[in-house]
């Protein structure tokens, strides 16, 4: 009969809490930077400049049709061979940003394309300049339309970030792996990690719901 032993987990709760904080930090940075990449990618794809569109298409298709694990191996082990070496943490962040940027580009593009042409023309007729049109007429309603897909992609990103532990970047899964190497209470440790990831996913989901109410509940609330 298997004897459960959660003592190593209880003894190192501070370590796991710190790991969870690192995962939150890494995910948040990847979300913010990945969001920037996504908006640029989506604007480029809807710009009508053909070579730019092709480049973005290649980026999106390559990233979406290869595993994240291979992407991170390629960045961390492959790029130094051509003179681009970086720390595990930088490689992890870069890989996550590149990955979520590809999915985000497609999501935001579909949002931009969901804005009727007539609205942009109406904006022009009201004398808005192109920056104002993009900001108030295109991107804000576009983001509102695709908000659920984008935020579930972000939560998926947070869960995927556990894979960065394979290159020993600092995160929750790495903290668990270190603890496992010292105590061998494998099942108990990974069960705890799974619960923490689940709680993090719930927390992110709640936070995104609150952000939605603040930024995208117009015009009903005003």
């Amino acid at each position, binding site marked *: *009969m*298997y004897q459960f032993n959660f003592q190593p987990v209880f003894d190192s709760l501070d370590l796991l809490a710190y790991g969870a904080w690192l995962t939150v930090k890494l995910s948040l940075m990847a979300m913010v930077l990945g969001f920037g990449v996504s908006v640029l990618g989506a604007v480029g794809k809807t710009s009508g400049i053909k070579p730019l569109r092709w480049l973005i298409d290649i980026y999106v*298709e*390559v990233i*979406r*049709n*290869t*595993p*994240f*694990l*291979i*992407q991170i*191996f*390629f960045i961390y*082990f*492959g*790029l*130094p*061979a*051509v003179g681009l070496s970086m720390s595990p943490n930088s490689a992890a962040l870069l890989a996550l940003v590149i990955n979520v940027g590809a999915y985000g580009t497609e999501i935001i593009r579909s949002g931009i394309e969901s804005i009727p042409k007539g609205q942009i023309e109406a904006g022009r007729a009201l004398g808005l300049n192109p920056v104002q049109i993009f900001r108030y007429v295109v991107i804000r309603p576009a983001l509102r339309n695709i908000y659920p897909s984008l935020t579930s992609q972000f*939560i998926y990103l947070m*869960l*995927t970030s*556990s*894979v960065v*532990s*394979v290159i020993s970047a600092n995160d929750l*899964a790495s903290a668990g792996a270190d603890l496992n190497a010292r105590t061998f209470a*494998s*099942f108990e440790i*990974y*069960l705890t*990690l*799974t619960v923490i*990831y*689940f709680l993090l*996913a*719930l927390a992110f989901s709640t936070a995104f719901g609150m952000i939605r109410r603040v930024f995208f509940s117009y015009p009903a609330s005003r």
Partner: protein
Amino acid sequence: MIREFTSTEVLFIVAAIRWTLILSAIAFLGGAIGGLIIALSRTSRKKSLRRIAAGFIQVFQGTPLLMQLFLVYFGLAVVGLPINPLVAAAVALTLHASAYLGEIWRGAIEAVPQGQSEASTALALSYRDRMQHVILPQALRLAIAPTVGFLVQLIKGTSLASIIGFTELTRAGQIINNATFKPFLVFGTVAALYFILCWPLSLLARRMETRMRRAITR
């Protein structure tokens, strides 16, 4: 002694594709059975069944696949079974696929107009007949594009089985990289092979989705 990256090494990597495909096939078939059960429970009239299925989906979609793999892998020892990477990967990916396919198919079942269900009841069809001959065939039409899309995600997901030591495409690449130390070339090759597996499926899913949208809006 560092080996060269020759055709022998490339062949070793290419041959490992079969394990990626076998693992994907097992997980997809297992996930199809599990997913159908989850989808039917999720749309059932019994509240308890709906709750259990919803919980199952939430747990498996709310935790990392990597953690699910580790849990099943080390969980085998907990229930007294010998640790086997293939079994662990197959079980974890099957559970994972069950949750995702269950959620996709729930959506498809719910998208079939309520009237169809009511008409079947009015015709005194049993639950089994109603599902088998009325609801599921119509849901299938809606479900097929996102299902193919999920298959891409599943094939990519099998790469994580390399972390618990199962030698599929990714692990074959790591083995060759350790022997030749040509990471750029080796992982580039592995990425290209995944791309060849996944891209046609992605294109197919997208084409089916556009065709479906056209059929619905017509």
